[in-house]
């Protein structure tokens, strides 16, 4: 009987690596997804001279894809510099996992976000952060590239679901080519809110649906 998950995913799910907390970590982050309820915590020990990750661990309050991704990124991040760790993409990770079902990609993105957030947490604590940039359409677009289209497992921008983005006076409006009663409409809206709302100068996010759009998501890349 074929499970939707690869053998590698199942192996990491059954026997997750680097689980638990590190005592006195140099950095940590907990990322949560109110839309689906998953949470991932990542803990780091970093060599202060080389900025290399010497120890990394995770905890997960999530599904199989979430646990497996968190497990494999701890393996991949160990020994990497902060910059290298931040540059890890879900595409690389998904490949390492032998692929993930499209609908479960968003659960794995959360684990990657958590690693990034832990690295950023270290950078903030150690004065490595550059100036805060104001939110622009481009910043929003980049964030939307981390929101997955659950039909195909690729991001919203790439699958041309984002029709328009406007940014003005701390108000962000995202217009989608998707009707409001689509199977995934609620989920996608919540994921967008999660990604955009934390931006430091944003105080209002609205997502607009297009009732004329077909109720199927486009599959084009």
């Amino acid at each position: 009987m074929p499970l939707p998950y690869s053998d590698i995913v199942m192996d990491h799910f059954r026997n997750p690596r680097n689980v638990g907390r590190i005592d006195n970590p140099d950095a940590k982050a907990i990322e949560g997804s109110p839309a689906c309820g998953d949470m991932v915590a990542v803990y780091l020990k970093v060599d202060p001279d080389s900025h290399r990750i010497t120890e990394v661990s995770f905890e997960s309050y999530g599904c199989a894809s979430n646990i497996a991704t968190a497990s494999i990124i701890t393996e991949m991040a160990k020994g990497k510099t902060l910059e290298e760790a931040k540059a890890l993409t879900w595409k690389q990770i998904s490949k390492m996992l032998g692929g993930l079902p499209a609908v479960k990609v968003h659960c794995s993105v959360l684990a990657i976000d958590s690693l990034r957030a832990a690295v950023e947490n270290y950078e903030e604590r150690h004065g490595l952060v550059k100036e805060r940039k104001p939110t622009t359409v481009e910043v929003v677009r980049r964030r939307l590239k981390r929101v997955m289209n659950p039909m195909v497992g690729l991001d919203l921008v790439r699958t041309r679901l984002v029709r328009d983005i406007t940014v003005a006076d701390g108000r962000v409006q995202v217009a989608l080519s998707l009707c409001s009663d689509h199977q995934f409409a609620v989920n996608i809206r919540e994921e967008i809110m999660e990604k955009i709302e934390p931006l430091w100068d944003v105080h209002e996010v609205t997502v607009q649906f297009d009732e004329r759009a077909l109720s199927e998501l486009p599959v084009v890349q």
Partner: protein
Amino acid sequence: MLEEIIYLDNGATTRMDKRVLAAMTPFFLETYAAATSQFGYSMGIDAKDRLEEARNTVARELGAAPEEFAFTSGSTESSNMALKGVALALGERKGKHIITTSIEDFPVLHSVRVLEKRGFSVTYLEVDELGRVDLNRLSEAMEPETILVSVQMANQEIGTLQNVASVGAICRERGVLFHTDASHSFPRVPMDVRELPVDLVTVTAHLIHGPKGVGGLYVRKGTPLVKWMDGGFQEFNLRGGVENIPGAIGFATAIELVTPEETSGLQVMRDQLIERLLQIPHARLNGPPELRLPHNVNVSFRFVEGESILLHLDMRGFAVSTGSACFSRSLEASHVMMGIGGDHERAHGSVRFTFGRFNRPKDVDAVADAIAEVIERLRAISPLGKQ
């Protein structure tokens, strides 16, 4: 994969009883004719007679007259037929307001959503923490334009039995039609339409070890209903299409095989499992302890996620289900779990166990032991619930 799984997802569907299959087989291979009028050839007449016998059996179980019961392709069709049929019949003549609950199963919920788009207004009654409808709220929600109330007999996820007798009485008093979805309760929770003031009842076969793809709708005599599945004049001209005679025979046989003794046995297993699961720390029963489906257990475990629990149990040979968003086809947490508490956490770690004919008393301890181990394992890797 283990040799034999312990199947505890009988609320999703059930294994068909071999006796049901044996009763159905001749109607595929021997008496396979379409049910014809009394002037047809003998195999068709025979088929018709057997179809009517099956109808009598189902109708009798409901306390209905045979001509008040139409076979359908299952509960989804039955509820579509009831809600859209009444809306078409009364929308222009009487009014466009419908009342239902926020925790109905999808056939009812999505049918009224479609009607909402077509100009009907719908009140979704909220339920309390145990999933029960507040009768005062129902009375308050009634408007002169209200044409139909749809409140389920029993909830598909948390097993809550609604007070349908009182709901029906309120509807009767105001001259409003009442539909109930009894898919998950019929016939284990007995109902009699001679006493229950109800106009339309949805039932299905596959949840009681009958075949998939057959169910029915009770339609009280005189209920205004526009035919929704157009075609021939079958099923008292309520539903077109050549009758599914093997299915009807299967449904009737499945009903005959359900006994009160068997249902009591399921209830014993239910109560034992609830007791065992509530010994696990941070476990909480969803739905009421007593006024619930005799075969349904639903418990939320804090700090862990349902799909992970489900996968671990699958590896150990158990089949269960969860209300976690990670498991749903729309990636949304169960609307029932959200409806009774409104928080994701409760949905996230919820597990439903539903017993059926082929479960044995030893299954209770087996699954309780397995789940205790799985929960401990997953809590060990969870960021929550620790100091």
